[in-house]
């Protein structure tokens, strides 16, 4: 009798313990699933800001420190007269106008297989051919510049209807070999392409004011382009940090019927 009571009590205790362990296991499994789900989401989101291969490497073994040389086409865009504009507009209006601008430019770049690498104030640095191999990166970048021009025209009409000032943009494009990798301090790193192509594109963008045009590209890019792009040659320009004068071309359009 005593044995039966003892065995019964032991069974109840064991069942209780099993029930608690099972509950704990289920809770842990649910937390693990939630954590893995957010990790998955994070990994997929990261793939928008760095090449997937790099994201995989980060997920597998931390931050790689080595960069690699890549041929890329760089598009650098900047709003003309932004400082004056920022002084004229109320901060909340300025932010709204800027956000509308960035959204439209981003769509134009994305539609032509470019990736916005960095926003520097009102400036946009976009890369073509940095994430996946892209033999058509030059054509893509110039099509993106034309799409940005069209999107800005449309946005300006909208701004004008709301009584807001029009925006003007200068775009510089260049193709060359840069070093791609994770760059930054131990606390903060970004996927970036550094070196010649980025500097040249930024300097060429600066020339758009001097030549009174909204989009300029270098001869290095022009040599690789579809002949249907309508380009206008300017005299070679001296660029800071570049030893020889760089021939540049204004982008006037694209003759789609030329094929």
């Amino acid at each position, binding site marked *: 009798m005593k044995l039966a009571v003892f065995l019964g009590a032991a069974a109840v205790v064991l069942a209780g313990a099993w029930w608690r362990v099972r509950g704990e296991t289920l809770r842990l499994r649910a937390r*693990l*699933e939630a954590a*893995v789900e957010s*990790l*998955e*989401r994070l*990994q*997929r*989101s990261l*793939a*928008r800001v760095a*090449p*997937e*291969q790099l994201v*995989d490497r980060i*997920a*597998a073994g931390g931050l790689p420190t080595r960069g690699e040389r890549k041929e890329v086409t760089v598009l650098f865009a900047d709003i003309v007269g932004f400082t004056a504009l920022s002084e004229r507009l109320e901060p909340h209006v300025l932010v709204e106008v800027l956000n509308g601008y960035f959204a439209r430019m981003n769509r134009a770049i994305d539609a032509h*297989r470019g990736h916005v690498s960095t926003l520097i104030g009102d400036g946009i640095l976009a890369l073509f051919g940095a*994430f*996946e*191999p*892209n*033999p*058509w990166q030059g*054509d893509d970048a110039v099509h993106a510049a034309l799409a940005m021009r069209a999107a800005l025209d449309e946005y300006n009409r909208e701004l004008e209807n709301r009584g807001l000032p029009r925006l003007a943009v200068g775009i510089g494009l260049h193709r060359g070999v840069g070093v791609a990798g994770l760059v930054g301090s131990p606390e903060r790193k970004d996927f970036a392409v550094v070196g010649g192509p980025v500097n040249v594109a930024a300097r060429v963008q600066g020339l758009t004011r001097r030549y009174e045009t909204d989009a300029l590209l270098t001869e290095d890019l022009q040599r*690789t*382009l*579809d*002949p*249907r792009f309508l380009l206008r040659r300017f005299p070679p320009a001296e660029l800071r940090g570049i030893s020889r004068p760089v021939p540049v071309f204004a982008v006037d359009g694209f003759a789609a019927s*030329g*094929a």
Partner: protein
Amino acid sequence: MAAMPGTAIQDVPLQDVEWEECCLQPGRNPELERELRAEFGMVPPAARYFADCPWIGRSLVAFHFERGRLVHLPADLTDRIGLVVSQDSSCRYCYAAHRLILRSLGLSESRIRRLEQDLLAADHAPRERAILDFARAFSRASPLPTQDDIRSLRQAGLDEAAVKEVAVVAGYSVAACRFSTLPALPPQRLEALPDRWFMRVARPLLARAIRRGFRPGRPERLAPEQAAGPFAFLVRELDGLPLARSMRQVIDEAWASPLLPRRTKGLVFAVVARGLGCPLSEQEATRLLAAEGLEPQALRPVLEHLASPDLDPTEREAVPFARETIWYRPASIQRRAREVCGQLGAPRFLELLGVAALANMVCRLAATFHALR
């Protein structure tokens, strides 16, 4: 459907990935249906959409891996490879198809979920882990598989023939994802099926029926006539495996199909090869095009700028579209596909998407086999 990329980057769960309406209507092709029924015991729902271009449907039979096509790989690994590739490609249709098969084989929803999570958490056995990692890199092709990718497989104990089988299984998954994603085959029924009451009741029977169909393949040599033809260099690499015959059959049928001219198909192969950076496949496509009368100097502007005054109206649609099939987001490629389908008509559009899918498979395989040497 054995399942694949668009290396399609999405930061939402797969069942929430934006998916357009299908641009094709299901049709009937009694001969194709007989063949599919003989192989699968049923007509896979996807095959009805390929009625106008039967070689795509027949490729399901040729690459029915579980039925004597694999000598070195266990048959139950094919669906896991397919799951990885379709997940990575954001192909809702193939993903749902692979989940359905895995559920039918008796894997619970939570077990499949764990399988997907383990892919991320590196909890697989080293051999399986290496195979699934390779499948993912193969599908992304950014860049194409290299000797490093092969080395991981060899270190996990796979010999050359087994590596080739893994590559072909991943390759057909890449193609199948394009067959399904580009026309936006409707995934909703497949997604809901595992939870229907009759599926739950029939699961044990289904599992037994599927497993009974598993049959290992036997090594076989290529007949001399099979060692020639388009992309013969690729087929010869598979000599000794039943997959060589499958590959020969599918490439030959695609090349011989009358819906699109061979020149158009050659251009699609050449553009995909250039986009993926596969010089071997580009050379072969250039050779095939020269045989169709398009000389290399006339091909050059097409490959440099995806346009040329020498292209006919169909080619002007096909060439830029071929490029878009390499990396894409499902909804945007589906909107483009609808436009192209409207321009070319469904049968010719089907052949175009089929050839583009095949080219994506072939170029990845060519790079893999080259890296093996």
